[in-house]
């Protein structure tokens, strides 16, 4: 008997999958990393109690800590991960909308008539993914933004999202009380999200500088991400442009612009959401790499450094679990948005 609330039924049944998926990831971490790294052989009951201990350790944030340096206790890995969250959030707040809006409109513009002039840049981007098109485009856009930042703010790019000490000396006579300098990194109070804290303290020049720094990273992420997204997105648009309902509407004399940006654009929201869900892990990997490249004290830098050093296995396990949780929840949300946009392709129908 069909459900009276198909969307709710779909949302709940899809939600029920999440714990099983997380369990599979945990099991993979245990069998793939924890068991091989154990000094003693885990067998029988110890095998299962070891799994329970690992899960408890991960979910309670006991990810270990770097060794004590110069007699000073060092912050634990879980705390480092949490501290990186606000920075990564600010980058995502810029990069995600640029990626999403760019992907949606660029795919619609370039896939509609595959041989039109607007298709050339897209082919340059999509053909190469990280290759020629992206490198050239990223280089040009990033160079322009870099130069603009240096010219306007008399500061250097990199070292996170907060302007450097030199900038503060030039414009503010030093750090204000709400910017904390810990030596290796700067952070803002009370939220640790620079753009929010600057707003709360009414530091408008700082707002412009941190926004520009984040924009540079957001564009870098979006260009790389778009290359991966546009390739399948363009073919979805091209398929849609050849569909029967578009032909029928065209035969009825509906203007081409309305067909394109009205009929097709609305119908393509659902497949685009699904495509976005598929590419979330790729987006995250890109953001992490860009954060590390620009020296942000965010989750990306933490992830790349932890995985590169490989010394703290509990931190690696915790990090992978946290990323999987983030991706699975994001995919769940986008699946629901896709089902809401077009219920026909899902069991919510």
């Amino acid at each position: 008997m069909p459900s009276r609330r198909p969307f709710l039924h779909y949302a709940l049944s899809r939600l029920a999958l999440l714990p099983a998926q997380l369990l599979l990831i945990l099991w993979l971490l245990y069998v793939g990393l924890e068991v091989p790294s154990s000094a003693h052989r885990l067998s029988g009951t110890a095998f299962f109690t070891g799994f329970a201990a690992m899960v408890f350790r991960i979910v309670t944030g006991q990810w270990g800590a770097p060794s004590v340096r110069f007699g000073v206790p060092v912050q634990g890995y879980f705390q480092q991960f949490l501290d990186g969250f606000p920075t990564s959030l600010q980058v995502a707040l810029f990069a995600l909308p640029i990626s999403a809006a760019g992907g949606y409109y660029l795919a619609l513009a370039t896939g509609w008539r595959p041989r039109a002039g607007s298709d050339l840049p897209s082919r340059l981007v999509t053909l190469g993914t990280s290759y020629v098109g992206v490198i050239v485009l990223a280089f040009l856009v990033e160079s322009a933004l870099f130069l603009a930042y240096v010219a306007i703010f008399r500061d250097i790019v990199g070292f996170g999202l907060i302007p450097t000490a030199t900038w503060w000396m030039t414009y503010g006579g030093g750090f204000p009380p709400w910017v904390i300098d810990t030596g290796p990194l700067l952070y803002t109070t009370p939220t640790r999200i620079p753009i929010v804290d600057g707003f709360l303290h009414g530091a408008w020049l700082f707002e412009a500088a941190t926004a520009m720094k984040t924009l540079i990273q957001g564009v870098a992420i979006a260009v790389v991400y778009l290359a991966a997204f546009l390739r399948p997105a363009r073919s979805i648009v091209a398929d849609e442009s050849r569909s029967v309902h578009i032909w029928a509407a065209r035969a009825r004399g509906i203007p081409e612009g309305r067909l394109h940006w009205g009929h097709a654009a609305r119908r393509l929201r659902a497949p685009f959401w699904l495509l976005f869900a598929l590419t979330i892990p790729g987006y995250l990997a890109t953001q992490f790499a860009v954060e590390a490249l620009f020296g942000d004290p965010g989750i990306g830098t933490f992830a790349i450094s932890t995985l590169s050093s490989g010394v703290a296995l509990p931190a690696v396990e915790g990090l992978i679990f946290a990323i999987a949780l983030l991706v699975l929840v994001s995919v769940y949300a986008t699946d629901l948005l896709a089902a809401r946009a077009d219920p026909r392709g899902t069991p919510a129908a």
Partner: protein
Amino acid sequence: MSPPATGPIPPPAPRPSLWARNPPPKELWAGAALLAVYVGLALSALIEFGSHLGTLAVTRAWVPTYVIIGPNPAQPFGVLPAFGVSLSTALWQATPWDLAILLPILAIDGALALILGTWAGLAEGGPVDHAIGFLGDSLGAVPGPFLLLVVFGGLSLALARGVGLPYFVILFGALLWPTGARLVRDQARREARRPYVEAARAAGATGRRIAFRHLVPNVLDPVLAQLPIDLVVVYFVLSVFPWWTCFQYTTSNANLYLPMLPAFSPLPSTLFPEWGYLLGNGTCLAYTYPDGPFFWWMAVFPILAMAGFGLAIALALDGIGKWRRGSRS
């Protein structure tokens, strides 16, 4: 009225061959030509370097990081300090290794995505479909580079003799399939409802025959589109992690820099020729502090080597897809 002409019936005009009716598109020619250049370089490197193919030849005078030698007639791509090697020689030496790493990874990835995606699409709604979907979605929850490092790291710890490139290639290929399989599944389930599949089923074809004889050739497009994207994931692992290790080292003491590998690296030694490893180190040696000079050649030439190969793969696969669509129309 004259009688009709008698005699032998003239033979019909020869039908143009399939090749003439549907010539390969320009993309395919361009991609194949570019790939042929890479294969030629790889073969010549095998002959030139012989048993020393796996170790970069160091020139001690070029090792200090303050020795900066840019592109010149003798060293057209300049010199990579710390390694003490000519970049053109190093990239040439790395070509056979990179082809041996990248091509099998793409082959395994594509084959798994095609087989599992087709199987799931054909068995839509059944336990096989659910199992493949669940496994793919769960594995796909962790970005490919990170998942690979975890599994490869575990394997490195488990095997006393250590693991090397062959394991890395097989593992990477085996972990990249979820995205491609999901796209193939979607196409396969649509194809499975079409009349030609119904006809094959009515004629008594088995599920395996329907899958391999009828569906697989018709669901190739998503895999052809996905493989160049998956190549980026491989490049990510091979270049980003070595860059970070090098970056950490050079920011602490650039003058004493010695090449080092990141944790769980598949490369057998610190002087192993590989494009991503050269790019990672080249990028950090080229640009170690923000307001310093940028030794562009250390990063640009490794990027071009990788970009050229990626372009060759993308062009060739695009061309194959276009050619196939042309032959069906």
